[in-house]
């Protein structure tokens, strides 16, 4: 009798956990559904990253590439967002560009979700929401807030110790960090393949200049920064002056030669292009963040960070009013624009001409929604 009772309780428990698994699985799996991106009418072509590395086909590492080519030849620019899917300003800036621009001279290639797998899950113990949204003229558009790392379900297990393709020794989880995996490995782990695919894209498309859009926690020293390689030193310095004239404060950071595997180092060393990485201040992936919510991502108001700024613990101004996403995106857009005008000044033959580039001041004032295309 006791035995039967025990079996009954066990069965009930199994049923109970199956229900929990089912309900939480629905939530987890919902992250696999991509948010739609509606490119501007002037999109020349759309490819997948697997066009540059066949073995990425039908994997979670494959990702959309939007190509805009002008009538006239000029410079070739690559913009990557979403290398770290928990840094939304990079992702949203690239989406805004994809949905608005028209290129009349030169070529621009945009990868909004560089680490596509990272968008399909959230980091444990970070308590982040799965999505955030913007109001557009015809309704809300939602975007996923992913993880800094590739989904462990797509790349498993982590090594104990990770020696990245550039030879740096890192903790095992970093093998899932796209921005530690450059220049990638052709037959390596998924994240290394994505890095390799991006390197192939850079080489095959004859990229001259590449901008990797990121964000960092407000307590991190490299913030509101333009990180440059020695190949892009002049370009970065010139862009900085331009940005200062426009009222944006940035710091210039040289890409350390002993910190390997990052885009701003390996793109320059291996593909000999001019790489630049941009950082803005994102409270929602910091260690000091208060209550997490979609509002924290979009509005960036956080009393802990305001307090930390007062205590002098931050490397960036952070007031009670917060650092909203629209400002972070505006900073990225302004930087892209300044970098392009500096490119023209330094290398007139590489000039890239864009029409309908979302204006940073307008984005800052009216928000992101008005620049997103309504679902068609």
């Amino acid at each position, binding site marked *: 009798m006791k035995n039967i009772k025990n079996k009954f309780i066990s069965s009930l428990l199994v049923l109970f956990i199956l229900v929990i698994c089912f309900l939480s699985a629905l939530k987890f799996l919902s992250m696999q559904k991509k948010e739609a991106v509606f490119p501007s009418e002037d999109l020349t072509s759309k490819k997948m990253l697997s066009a540059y590395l066949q073995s990425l086909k039908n994997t979670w590492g494959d990702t959309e590439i939007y190509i805009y080519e002008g009538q006239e030849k000029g410079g070739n620019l690559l913009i990557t967002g979403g290398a770290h899917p928990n840094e939304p300003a990079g992702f949203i800036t690239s989406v805004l560009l994809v949905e608005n621009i028209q290129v009349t001279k030169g070529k621009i290639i945009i990868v909004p979700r560089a680490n596509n797998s990272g968008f399909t899950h959230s980091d444990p113990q970070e*308590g982040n929401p799965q999505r955030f949204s913007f109001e557009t003229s015809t309704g809300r558009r939602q975007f996923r807030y992913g993880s800094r790392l590739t989904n462990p379900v797509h790349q498993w297990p982590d090594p*104990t*110790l990770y020696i990245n393709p550039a030879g740096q020794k890192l903790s095992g989880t970093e093998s899932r960090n796209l921005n530690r995996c450059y220049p990638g490995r052709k037959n390596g782990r998924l994240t290394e393949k994505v890095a390799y695919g991006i390197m192939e894209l850079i080489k095959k498309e004859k990229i001259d200049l590449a901008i990797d859009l990121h964000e960092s926690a407000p307590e*991190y020293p490299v913030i509101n920064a333009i990180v440059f390689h020695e190949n892009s030193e002049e370009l970065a310095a010139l862009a900085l002056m331009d940005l200062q004239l426009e009222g944006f404060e940035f710091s210039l950071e040289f890409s350390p030669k002993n910190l390997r595997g990052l885009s701003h180092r390996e793109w320059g060393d291996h593909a000999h292009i001019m790489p630049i990485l941009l950082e803005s201040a994102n409270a929602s992936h910091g*260690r000091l963040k208060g209550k997490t919510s979609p509002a924290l991502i979009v509005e960036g108001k956080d009393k802990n960070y305001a307090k930390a700024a007062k205590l002098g613990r931050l490397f960036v101004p952070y007031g009670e009013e917060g650092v909203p996403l629209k400002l972070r995106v505006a900073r990225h857009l302004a930087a892209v624009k300044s970098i392009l005008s500096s490119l023209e000044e330094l290398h007139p033959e590489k000039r890239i001409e864009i029409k309908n580039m979302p204006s940073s001041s307008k984005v800052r004032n009216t928000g992101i929604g008005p620049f997103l295309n309504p679902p068609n």
Partner: protein
Amino acid sequence: MPEYLIFLLMIAIFALLAMLLKLPIGVSLAFSALAGSLLGGEGIALRHLVEGSFGYFDTILIIVTAMIFMKVLQASGILDTITSLLLRTFYKKKSALLLTAMFLVMFPGMITGSSTTAVLSTGALVAPVLMKMGLSKVKTAALIAMGGILGMIAPPVNILVMIMGAGVDMPYVGLTIPLLIIVIPLAVAISFWLGYKDIKIIEYEKMRAVLPPSYHQQYGFRLYLPLIVVIVLMLGQSILPKIMPDIGIPAIFLVGSLIGLGCGRSFNFFKATQKAIKESTPILCILVGVGMFIQIMTLTGARGWIVISFLSLPSIFLYLGIATSMPLFGAVSAFGSSSILGVPFILALIDKNAILTSSALSAVAGLGDLMPPTALAGIFAAQVVGEANYFKVIRHCLMPALFELVMGVGVLISTPLLDKII
């Protein structure tokens, strides 16, 4: 409701369930996390609760497989044989025994960066030897726990420093000497502190009497194969990463366990696994519960409140803050502590040499593995020696932990001086 109030209520609910109602710690943590999500206005945040526990998925895999390996070592007679070998070698040499035991325990931690791995593998090997030489159960466990923690901090692999380094863009280079400066004196001092008085040099006859059966004659060299394979695979992935495949610690333990099937006394692998599962489930459940608890703390803002509170301390109290908060927060796990608190603290001390700072902070954060309710090093050390109450073990770790704390903070304070010397 303010975040600190939610946090205090979560703690209160946990204490009520665990202490008054005597519910298992893991279950109490899970319920208090659920209560926190309700109090924080998040409803039943099922996704968050389950997601939080995944923070420990890799640790749990290591624990289960290490436990299976330990059961295999016991069942196949390997453990007895090695105890017998060590006893025959060291029954007359007290200091050599203590230092060898300490090094043996530290070794797997040094090459994997995990204290649990150390405690459950070589910890289990040296424990019977120390006990047979007169060291009490709890002191043996304390020595093993501390050995595991020191192994985790010692070079070549210190994951705590790697985690902190990742947060401040510091490459993992040049850490061997600073880490050795911290670890070597501690390893010597702690092993002598815990063992020198109690371990007795014994006569040959007396030693013979406590000698467990050795299966060396019967099975020969192959008896040691599981251990050798595990050590070679672990060493290979840290020393020859380009040649040796890094199959991860869980797979290494399972490979070792499977090899153990044909190397000694025959045993039932299924039963050995069941034993491992039965003994580890309460601990695994604690980790699941802590994961849920932390996720809800972060969700409601309580985690941020704790971090900012410590960072708000006036700078003269900063070291005090480090010395208290990092081990306390280690209740989450030493890894969690080094990421959540270690990184802000390095940044607060940014004018100092980051290599030395992170080495010292890792020594402080490592103590988190003694902090209940997770107390991984303490719990597993207690289990290895067969002590039901791990608090007794932790009590004996207090003094050694204090040594380590003083060492960590000492190095932190003397960073400018050390910077000039090394």
